[in-house]
Structures are given as structure tokens and as C-alpha cells.
């Protein structure tokens, strides 16, 4: 048993090397934004683990699916080293990368998804959306995307806090893995932090995996609300299936999917609930006692023997 786990782990470690993930380029300074113009979004594909952070030079053969907040899906065939596109609307876009290649008889299907939030927008197209006010967060897929044979999916995150735009330490991310729309109940998920912390989570009997966003490891940076840290969630799956992909034949397929996330520190990290409740109770006590005595003092209402609320 122990041995099996060990083998599994080593196997997984060997696989990290070829994890791909989408990485959004640092957004431009607001001040450079020209009036009316909508900034172009730029992304690159990284490989290896978070620390290595190698940039993939050639994306030819990769496909990018872009789902906008209305669920419309566009397909782009990629080439060159970076991905660019110009979102029209303010709001969330979901990108799905699909990169396939045959390496010594194994078809590697590299998948990655990334949510991209567009702050700016083209007023002429999106004023209706503005009027509507897009409050429902569309970070999560409702059902597996048909274009992806293998998919690691995030259910709606269980928040310990209010803001559902971003992840914070302590949030719990429920994950599921699908193969051709079928739920796989035995595929574990790997979690990796920029800091190098790693972990593997096994699914429960319902095939659900719960990843709690770990506490920050950067002591010195505590309290900086702007700080955000990368988190990579990935899963792999091998199928004995032979076929031919652009001339090369393969005997087995190796699927890998990653979800790059970034999270920040949360007030909850420093919170004191007990003290809070104490304060509330205390205030209530003081206030009501104050009221009581104040009334006692200037009660002119007569003795109860003449009045009776009943």
C-alpha cells in the first residue's frame, strides 16, 4: 500500500515537468489607457512548475477557446509565442488552452483554463450590460465544456468572506475531474504554490476534492492587502488509446489540465471573532443598562398599582 502511494507520488513528480498553464501579462497602468480605447489583453503559456515558470516559445498547434459571460465560445488557432485578444465587454472571460503533441508514442493533451476579468469595455457594445450590472460571478462552468475531452473543474468556491471576485487564504475550492463528460472519481489533484509548497488531494467517493487555499508563507509581507500569490491546481489522466496525431502515431494518451489561480491574504487571517462578539454583546449590555437606568431615573409614569398593561 505504502509502496503504491510512493510510486504514485514519484510518477506524479515526473509529470509536473510538462504541466502548462496560462499566464496573464501584468496589466498596463491605468494612466496609459487612451480615452475610449479598450486595452488589448496579452497572455503567455508557461510550463514546468511555478518556480521554473518557463515560457513556451511556440504555440503552433494549440487551440484557444474563449467563453464570454454570455456563454458564447470562440475558437482561435494559436501561433507564435503569445496570445492576444481584445475583449469588448467589461466582465469575465474564460480562456481554455488545448495543446496536443505526440512525444515518443504518447499523445500529450495539455489543457489549461484561466479566468480573465476585463475592467474596461467598449461602451457602445456593453452599455446594456452596464445598466444591467453584472453581479453574478461567472468564474465557474456550469457543465463540462464539450471541446475538452478531459477537464478539471472548479465548483463554486466556498467563501469564508464576502468578495466573490477573488480567492483568499482559507477559501475552499471544490474540484471535480471529467473525462468526455463523465465524472472520474479516482483522479487526484495536485496543488502547488509559488513558494514551492506542494500537495496532492485524493477525491472522496463522490469524486469531489476540496482544496483549501493555504496560509501565506511570506511572513514579512503580512498585512499587505495588495499582495497576491500564485496557486496552480492540476490533474493528469492516462488512457491506453492508440491513434495518429499529425502524422505521428501513439499508443496511449496523457491528459493534463491545470487551473492557475492567484489569491491574496484575507482579513480573516487576522480576525478575532470572539472579540467581535464580545464587543457587540458589551455594547448591547452597556446601552440597554444605560437606557434602563435613564428611564428609572426620570420615570414619571405612576406606580404599577394604578396601571396594568394586562
Amino acid at each position, binding site marked *: 500500500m505504502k509502496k503504491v502511494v510512493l510510486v504514485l507520488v514519484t510518477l506524479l513528480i515526473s509529470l509536473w515537468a510538462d504541466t502548462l498553464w496560462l499566464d496573464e501579462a501584468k496589466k498596463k497602468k491605468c494612466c496609459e489607457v487612451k480615452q475610449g480605447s479598450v486595452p488589448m489583453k496579452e497572455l503567455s503559456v508557461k510550463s514546468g512548475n511555478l518556480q521554473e515558470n518557463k515560457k513556451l516559445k511556440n504555440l503552433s498547434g494549440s487551440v484557444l477557446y474563449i467563453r464570454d459571460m454570455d456563454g458564447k465560445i470562440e475558437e482561435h488557432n494559436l501561433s507564435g509565442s503569445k496570445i492576444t485578444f481584445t475583449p469588448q465587454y467589461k466582465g469575465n472571460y474564460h480562456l481554455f488552452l488545448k495543446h496536443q503533441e505526440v512525444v515518443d508514442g504518447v499523445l500529450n493533451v495539455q489543457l489549461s483554463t484561466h479566468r480573465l476579468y476585463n475592467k474596461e*469595455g467598449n461602451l457602445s457594445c456593453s452599455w446594456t450590460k452596464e445598466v444591467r450590472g453584472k453581479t453574478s460571478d461567472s468564474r465557474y462552468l456550469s457543465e463540462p465544456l464539450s471541446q475538452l475531452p478531459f477537464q478539471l473543474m472548479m465548483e463554486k468556491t466556498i*467563501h469564508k468572506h464576502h468578495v466573490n471576485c477573488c480567492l483568499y487564504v482559507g477559501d475552499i475550492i471544490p474540484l471535480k475531474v471529467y473525462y468526455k463528460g463523465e465524472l472520474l472519481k479516482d483522479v487526484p489533484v495536485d496543488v502547488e504554490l509559488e513558494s514551492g509548497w506542494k500537495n496532492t488531494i485524493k477525491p472522496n467517493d463522490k469524486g469531489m476534492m476540496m482544496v483549501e487555499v493555504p496560509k501565506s508563507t511570506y511572513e514579512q509581507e503580512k498585512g499587505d492587502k495588495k499582495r497576491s500569490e500564485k496557486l496552480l491546481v492540476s490533474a493528469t489522466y492516462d488512457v491506453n488509446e492508440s491513434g495518429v496525431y499529425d502524422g505521428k502515431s501513439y499508443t496511449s494518451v496523457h491528459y493534463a489540465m491545470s487551473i492557475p489561480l492567484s489569491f491574496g491574504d484575507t482579513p480573516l487571517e487576522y480576525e478575532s471573532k470572539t472579540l467581535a462578539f464580545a464587543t457587540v454583546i458589551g455594547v448591547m449590555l452597556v446601552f440597554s443598562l444605560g437606557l434602563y437606568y435613564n*428611564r428609572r431615573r426620570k420615570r414619571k409614569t405612576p406606580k404599577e398599582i394604578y396601571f396594568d398593561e394586562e
Partner: protein
Amino acid sequence: MTKNKFSLRRAVNNMNLVRFRFWFQIVAFALIVYGGYIGLDLGDKLPTFACVFNSEGTGGKCYVGELQHDLKHPLEGFVGFAGYAFLISLGMFAVWFWALNKGWCGFVCPLGTMQDWLTMVREKTKIRYSEYSWANRGKIKSIKYILLILLLLLPVMIANSVFGLPKLPNGLSMPFCDICPGRMMIPAFTGDFNQFYIDFSSKTDIVMTTIGMIMTGLFLVGSFIKKRFFCYFCPMAALQYVFSKPALLKLYKDGSKCTKCGDCYRACDMDILEIADDVTSKNLVTEDCTLCLKCVAACPEDGCLEANFMGATIFESTKEGFLVRMAMDQNKENHAH
């Protein structure tokens, strides 16, 4: 009064406002606080406390939150899309507001509803309500405007240095939300008490969250002992009042029919003296009015007070209605034997 034939208008004017409002508020409360669970989403520009911190349940979001968020950007950003977006949001807020005018406070606002529930509890326990002295009542009025100005100014001062002042710490990004009892109370109704915390991550956070806790304590006791305790200080009310004039729903008064008996003033949760003593102006939606229409229900004069929607009277005071509501329309004892 003497005509006995049934008419809808008559039925409406004779309605038991207390009960109607109770159920209306419950429905509204359910939609605002739990609507999210059934996928209800009224957008993020609601002129009422649909709390954004109630992330799962909320059926829409409070504009004051959005407003603070929007203002926390460098001013330059407001030229261009962001600027338009901001104006659209504000406009949208106004549109929502005009539909019900202050009725949002009296019939929809979950925080208001909670206060009314607390009032009911007090009434059951037969504890006397408190009143402000008229002098203090006058003084209080300004507080909500001060709060409004602060919640507008602070976020701006985070992202920009106003008059060369140093930028404020990020902890003040949502100054009002920090101290708004809604943040604690509304999620609490979905079983989420996580908002009860004091944030030690920075000095400002400690201060703001502590004030928040204090406010919650005050809210609970205050609105138990004083009807609509929080509404006296509500900056949302102040913001709304700016847009109140063109609203569709109105509270009109016919001064010539008013006997200044003060029954309306007695009924008013917000102790608005004008409702009884102002016999000249027609539109009686004052800054503190929550348009709860209790005054209309308590007015014994025919057609002296009325709720008016786009020029059409929807609910007006009548002698008969008054008598029905006060259970004075028949002699109980005589009917007994």
C-alpha cells in the same frame, strides 16, 4: 361613508396596512436576502441594503457598496469608459429608486424590516418606546449627510491625494460597509456570522471593524427601543433624498383638510413633525420619510393624505378606513349581547 356597495378603491382604503406591510416586507426580505439561492439577481445598483457581503444569498447588491468601490479609483480613470460606467450606474440607481421613492426604506430594505421586527418584539413585551426630544431630533438630521459625504470622500482619497493630502490607507476602501450593521446582520440571516470580526491586519482596519461591531450592538438595542433607530442616520436615505423629487411614488397632503390633530405624527416611526403641522406643501416626502404610509393609515380625514403613483391615487386616508383600522367601526359590546 354610508355607501355600502363594494368597490376596489374602498377595499384598498380600508386595508389593514400593518398586516399588508408585514407580509410585503417578509416577501421583499426573502427576495433580497435569500433571492440569490434561486438565482435572483437584481444587479448591483439597488437603492436598498441588499448586502454584498451576503455573497451567496443576496438577490442583488446595495449601490452604496458599489459606489464606494467605483470611487476608489484614480480620478483620471473617470475620463473614458469608467466615467461613463459610473454615470450609468448612478443613473441606474436613480431609476430603481424612482420606481418606489422612499418606499424602498419602508417596504423593501431588509435592515428596516429587521428593525420593524424588533419593534414588534418590543411591542409584545409591552416595553415603552423611546423618543428623541425635538431639539435632538433636529440635530440628528445632519448626521446622515455627514456619513454620506464621508463614504463618498474617503474612497476617493484612497486612490488620489486630494488637496495634496497623503493618500488614505487601503483599509478605508469601503468605509461605510465597515460600519454598516447590515454587513453583520444580513449575512447572519443566511447563517453566516463570519462578518462578526475585528480585523487586526492594520490600525485602520481595527478601528473601522470595531466601530462596525459597536454599530451592530447599537443597532440591535437601539432599534429595539426606538422605532427605526438606524434610519435616522442612514446615508442611503440621504443619497436617495437627493433624487427624491422626480420619483413616481409620492406622499401627498391636502392641507385644507388637515385638522392638525397629529394622529399621523403619532403613527410616524421617524417622528416627522411636518406630516402633522405642514399644511401648505403638497409633497410630504421629507428627507427622513420612509414612505411606510402609516400616516395615511392613521389619518381620520377623508382624502387628506394619499399615496400617489404617477398622479394616480393608490391609497388615501378615509374616515371609514381609519375606523376599520382602529376597530372603531362597530360597537363591540353591543354586538356581543
